[in-house]
């Protein structure tokens, strides 16, 4: 186990190092920097002044130095300073990330709460009423874009019920009720697509397992349905489902960027998109790298759960 853990951890580091290089390169590869954006239309601007600003921002140092300084800072929790506003990036992220993470976590929890039981029932009672219903719900979840559903939700709630979610985010630890008023609807809407995907995977995976010989053996030796399902089938069927849940968490962090915009939530969407428009390197680089870090760690946790669920996976 320890060796597997170590191997798996060792893979995380080069992956994230690669991600940081990809983001850094992407940002520098494409033309235009923050100074161009700020003074883009200004023909009066004196070239020497612009050079001075670049000098102050450290934009004319060798790329390797810029990269090392950024990544070194990132590793010690210093995410840099916004080139546009001068606000430390860590501060902005500390404000936005809780909102985005709460949205993603709530959505994945809702998705699993609905998807896993429904997927199990659908597989066990294949072609029954629940199965048909889950198929339809699955297709709806896959085909309805969350940003449209969110728009429709706001349209209906405001025109028919004269209700709009309160503005201004409050931490759930400060005022849980108000936080839920703000976050419940966006989280549920965001949950629909991952719910469909997890449900379909649960059903498909369980059907596959239920066809195996050892399940027939379990029945043949006289075990009851419940015992076969709980002790033999589910444990094995759950492995691909776990993978999908891990992947969906990443999808949710991307999806929440759009939902945040619609519900005017102060998550990282605003930070990321404004950072992109302004070519604010530290803001975009640190935000994306942090999102990837969280995503990679979630998937690492999923992989480690595997080896707990399935003793065969120990990668020697």
């Amino acid at each position, binding site marked *: 186990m320890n060796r597997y853990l170590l191997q798996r951890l060792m*893979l995380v580091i*080069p*992956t*994230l190092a*690669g*991600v940081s290089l*990809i*983001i850094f390169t*992407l*940002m520098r590869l*494409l033309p235009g920097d923050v100074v161009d954006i700020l003074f883009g239309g200004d023909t009066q601007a004196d070239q020497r002044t612009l050079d001075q600003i670049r000098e102050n921002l450290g934009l004319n140092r060798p790329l390797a130095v810029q990269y090392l300084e950024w990544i070194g800072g990132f590793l010690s929790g210093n995410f840099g300073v916004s080139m546009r506003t001068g606000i430390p990036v860590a501060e902005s992220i500390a404000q936005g990330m809780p909102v985005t993470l709460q949205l993603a976590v709530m959505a994945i929890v809702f998705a699993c709460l609905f998807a896993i039981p429904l997927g199990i029932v659908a597989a066990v009672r*294949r072609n029954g009423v629940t199965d048909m219903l889950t198929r339809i719900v699955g*297709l709806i979840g*896959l*085909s*309805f*874009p969350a*940003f*449209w559903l969110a*728009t*429709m939700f*706001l*349209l209906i709630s*405001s*025109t028919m019920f004269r209700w709009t979610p309160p503005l201004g985010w409050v931490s759930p630890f400060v005022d849980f009720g108000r936080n839920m008023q703000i976050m419940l609807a966006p989280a549920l809407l965001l949950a629909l697509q991952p719910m469909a995907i997890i449900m*379909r995977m649960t*059903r*498909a995976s369980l*059907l*596959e397992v239920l066809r195996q010989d050892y399940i027939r053996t379990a029945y043949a030796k006289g075990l009851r349905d419940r015992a076969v399902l709980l002790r033999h089938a589910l444990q094995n069927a759950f492995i691909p489902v776990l993978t999908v849940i891990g992947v969906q968490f*990443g*999808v949710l*962090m*991307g*999806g929440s*960027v*759009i939902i945040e*915009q*619609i519900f005017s939530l102060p998550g990282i969407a605003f930070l*990321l*998109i404004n950072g*992109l*428009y302004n*070519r604010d390197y530290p803001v*975009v680089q640190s935000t*994306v790298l942090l*999102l*990837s870090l969280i*995503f*990679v760690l979630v998937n690492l946790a999923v992989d480690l759960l595997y080896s707990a669920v399935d003793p065969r996976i120990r990668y020697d």
Partner: protein
Amino acid sequence: MTSPSAITDARAGGLPLMRRRTSPLIAALRRNVPGLVGMAIIALVVLAALLAPVISPYSPTAQVSRRLLEPGAQYLLGTDEFGRDIFSRVIHGSRISLYVGAVSVSLALAFGGALGLIAGYVGGRVDTLLMRLVDMLFAIPSLVLAIVIAGLLGPSLTNAMIAIGIVYAPIYARLVRGEMLAVRNYAYIEAARAVGVRPVGLIVRHFLPNIAAPLIVQTSLLLSTAILAEAALSFLGLGAQPPDPSWGAMLGSGRRFMELTPWVAIAPGIAIVITVLGFNLLGDGLRDALDPRLRGST
């Protein structure tokens, strides 16, 4: 003397042979009701795209009336905030969605497929290196990466297509590599190699036909994802630019006026749902048809 009818006969004779060759797919899909429904939906959307100038009563970009009119006889779905006919814009929007879907998925298939082919064919260090690269791209949440690339390239439809193509390329790379590894040890590949078939011939004539099925399924499902991604990027203002009638962009700009005329937001959304549903149904149907192991399991 060969009469013209003999040629027709020969052709007629040739046809059943062709049909027999493709029959497993068509026959399986014929029994698959959802797959057929999906195909019908896509056919309708394609038809709408092809005949857009004929079907739509007005130009999609010209102001034809007063702003924000309710749906009526003259303007089926009303008008938007610039007095443009929403129905005409929705019909024309199918062109953008299908075009973006096709181009971005082709890009992903070309790049990702090539990476996967090389990794799976060459193996060894090249394989490890390429797959590490793929892992890195997978480590960035895909929509976040698409937003970053599209935002950096500058908001335009072309750049959105490039962004979506890059983001989905790793999916193909992993898929093609996995299939290549599964197929490469089969006896027929060894046999082909033994009789001296060259690498390119080996890949084109022996590998590709045998890994085509999962690629086709993935492509259909990815088309729906790509169309959704374009809508999302355009919704954020990073894709299609005004006055192009992209469904996502229509939704993005229309939602500010939806309390006055809800159709500015409802109509493009329904169009997205219908199109995406079509590709999802077809993808499921194809998977059932092409992969007997999974039949009925989705």
